[in-house]
């Protein structure tokens, strides 16, 4: 979940540029403030230079990830630790702005015969990554599980693949095996500004849409009322979460898990109900739409500036959001994402995030080093540290045990919410998450439709029906090329 940092660093760069322009000096103004993104960018360029130098000579392998902020620094540190204990080729980590440019760069490097060993790619593009081929028609990635081939340890690094927490394992196990190594994994959770709610005299924590609505109405009627009550990004992920919570599917063939999905269902009752609830909240002045699709930054800022007491967001930023409260003098609580109280059982939340993909056609030594690094990255200590640093869930059971033994969750109850929410989900195709072609583009069709509904006051069922037509066309086209 990059955009907020991107925008912040962009703002910093503007200020920096203005200042530099204004005084004509070369002082390093862009590095001021809380902008990890701006000062890590040069690092990424440096690693890019060294990465081009000798990638296939056997003394280093490239790992490309879609982070350019503190998470890149963290990964580079882990890579340094890994290189220290390994005799094989060195792992060099390189950061990219976003998943798409990372993937395009990978494809280009693959076609030029000079690919990285490991690349990070996000959950919604799992089908695309599995189907990806180079210009010569060869598959781009190879299955991580079959490359591990049942070994318990690789180059002395214990394999953690069979210890991955259930929700992530269910999402990423396709046809019975892991094709990629789970890494940054989150769920959508809600954050409450308890101080604001207390000031308004509103108690308890909402579990259902109705709870949330009545709390919001009480809050807005109180003297402590702010601009509005809740916000969340218009990102398809939240719609997918809600559909899964209601036990409904997003695509046929068991969400594309018992066979390639050939029909998408954007106009299901579950989807219409959620969007209607959403629009109802907006119509009553309880929900603020920031006016931009996938606006992670604007929604985050509204919560951080105490303009709304509720925020539905990604658990990946639990640590950051909790710190906003500590720094801003208000109490931040995390809770489950509100669900449809009328929905029958059978649902639960799904994961989001990304996995590490192993590029096909590496030499045996390079491949083993790549696999060893993936497992090293997720060893209990590193997985626990990753969770503490960011808020992504601890990805293995061993790392959860480690954190528990350290008393982490007792001290940081907010950090336990995402795991608890995912563990509570019933195991079903709905909660495993949908796999379908052109999913990324279909997501945009969905958020476009929602924006149209929110801004132009349209009927949710009708507009989602139009989105369904566009999405189905995208899926058909994908299956025409890859089916």
């Amino acid at each position, binding site marked *: 979940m990059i955009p907020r940092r991107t925008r912040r660093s*962009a*703002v910093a760069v*503007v200020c920096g*540029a203005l200042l530099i*322009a204004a005084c004509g000096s070369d002082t390093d103004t862009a590095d001021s403030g809380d902008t990890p993104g701006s000062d890590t960018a040069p690092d990424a360029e440096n690693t890019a230079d060294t990465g081009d130098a000798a990638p296939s000579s056997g003394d280093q392998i490239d790992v490309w990830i879609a982070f350019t902020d503190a998470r890149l620094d963290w990964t580079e540190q882990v890579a340094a630790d890994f290189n220290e204990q390994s005799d094989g080729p060195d792992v060099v980590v390189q950061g990219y702005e976003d998943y*798409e440019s990372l*993937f*395009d760069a990978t*494809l280009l490097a693959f076609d030029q015969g000079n690919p990285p060993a490991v690349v990070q790619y996000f959950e919604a593009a799992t089908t*695309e990554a599995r*189907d*990806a*081929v*180079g*210009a010569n*028609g060869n598959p781009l990635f190879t299955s991580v599980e079959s490359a591990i081939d049942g070994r318990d340890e690789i180059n002395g690094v214990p394999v953690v693949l069979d210890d991955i927490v259930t929700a992530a394992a269910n999402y990423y196990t396709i046809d019975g095996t892991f094709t990629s190594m789970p890494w940054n994994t989150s769920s959508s959770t809600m954050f409450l500004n308890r101080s604001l709610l207390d000031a308004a005299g509103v108690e308890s924590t909402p579990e259902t849409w109705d709870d949330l609505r009545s709390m919001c109405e009480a809050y807005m009627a109180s003297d402590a009322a702010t*601009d509005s009550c809740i916000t969340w990004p218009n990102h398809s992920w939240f719609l997918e979460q809600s559909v899964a919570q209601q036990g409904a599917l997003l695509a046929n063939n068991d969400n594309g898990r018992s066979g390639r999905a050939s029909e998408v269902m954007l106009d299901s009752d579950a989807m219409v109900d959620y969007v209607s609830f959403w629009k109802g909240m907006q119509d009553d002045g309880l929900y*603020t*739409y*920031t*006016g*931009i*699709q996938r606006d992670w930054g*604007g929604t985050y*800022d*509204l919560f951080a*500036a105490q*303009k709304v007491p509720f925020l539905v967001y990604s658990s990946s930023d639990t640590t950051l959001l909790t710190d906003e409260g500590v720094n801003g003098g208000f109490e931040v609580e995390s809770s489950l994402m509100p669900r449809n109280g009328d929905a029958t059982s059978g649902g639960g939340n799904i994961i989001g995030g990304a996995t590490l993909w192993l590029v096909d056609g590496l030499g045996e030594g390079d491949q083993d080093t790549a696999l060893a690094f993936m497992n090293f990255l997720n060893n209990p200590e590193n997985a626990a540290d990753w969770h503490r640093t960011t808020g992504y869930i601890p990805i293995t059971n061993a790392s959860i045990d480690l954190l528990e033994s350290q008393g982490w969750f007792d001290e940081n109850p907010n950090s336990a919410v995402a795991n608890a929410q995912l563990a509570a989900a019933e195991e079903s195709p709905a909660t495993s998450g949908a796999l379908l072609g*052109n999913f*990324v*583009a279909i997501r*945009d069709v969905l958020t*476009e439709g929602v*924006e*149209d509904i*929110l*801004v*132009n006051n349209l009927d949710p069922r009708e507009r989602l029906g139009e989105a369904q037509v566009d999405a189905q066309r995208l899926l058909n*086209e*994908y299956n*025409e*090329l*890859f089916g």
Partner: protein
Amino acid sequence: MNVPLAVISVTLVAAVAAALLTHAAATFGRSRLLGAFAGVLLGLAGPLTVMVPLGFCTFDDETTTLDRWFGLALIAGAGFVAILLGRTALDPDAAKRRQQRGDDVAHGVFRGSRLAPWLLLAPTLVVLVVFLYWPALRTLRLSTQLARLGAPRRADRCVSNFTELVGPGMPWLVVVAISTAITVWTATWFARRRMAGRPIGPARQRVETAIRFGSTIGVGAVLLAIAGLWTADYRAVFVVTMIISIGTVAGGLVIALGIACLAYQPIRGAGLYRTLLVWPYAISPPIAGLLFFVMFDANSGIIEHWVDSIFGLALPDYRTNARLAQLVVVLASIWKTLGYNLLFYIAGLQTVPKDQMEAAMLDGAGSLQRFRYVVLPALSPITFFLVVTNLTYAFFETYGTIDYLTAGGPAGQTSVAMFEVIQTAIPGRDLGRGAAQSLVLFGGVVALTIWQFRSTGRRVSYGN
């Protein structure tokens, strides 16, 4: 494959070309046989250049009626261009007239080796071929395919990427607008012919004004007709592009001229003042977007903060209001181009002939009249140049501003054609449709350029 239709249409074009060029050859005093021969050749070459790469796919059995019409329009269009080229080639005076108009620049002549100029041009040509012509050809190819970014597999789509943009949503608009345009243009054509012999005087001036007025209406009608051709989705893009481009160009030039007149006054520190005014030009379009976002954001913007703390009012949110969003994008673009426009207008004001100004003053012209009848005409070459550069800016460069300000929203109401192209092809990863849309945009710009050079160019006074 509907072979008879294909053969008939191409033959028809060749026959028409032959007839027209035979007539043209006779008028220009050349051999009729030569004209007929050139006509057949060009009449076949034009349509075939277009249809052979497509494999005559618009005549396949499974294509829609719209695809067929599109194919026929392509054939007719290619034939039209071929006939125009042939007519110019046959006309012995065409080259001379071009030189007189100044379109054809022929200053220097290379002596000696014929190879030398090509060698000297080679670096430029290599760059052009690699970075312009080759990508353009690839775009043409992509526009006929189902192609996704990051997926090397392709499927042929014939012309459906284009015909998908066309929909019969508003047939009445198209019919009314086209007939208006034809009527107006026929009228101005007759007026021009009748005017040719008239002496210069007030009557002739009135007719000239009427003709200008008429051709403006004609252009507006054509734009309306084009707007009526699209599907509802793409019509929205077209309308938004028109609103934002015209707003940016018209607003930008008026404001720039106003400020230029003020900044041109001889005041103390004018040099510094003018330098500061040029500043926004040095800022890139995305930064302009970011700055306006920081100012006008309804949730955490600076202006929101002021309005709230001084007047206790809430600033309306431009990102959920279509008109406001367009206005903010236009404002940001105007501000961004202001420095550039000022630079030219201030320079232009210095070239306004002093003697004319003095003469006008002696004749008792007020300052407004001097501005209207002396300054404005003297600035017309600069205005023409700025209209061209500003329109280019509005079409191609506003992407960054829009991306940061509104991201095309609310609900596509600031998604100009260029933004839509990038949105379709890069985040949407739909290369085929993106390529088709970019060609539509390209066609629009070509048409606009032709229109600008034909109409505005004629009115520009270069002072000779």
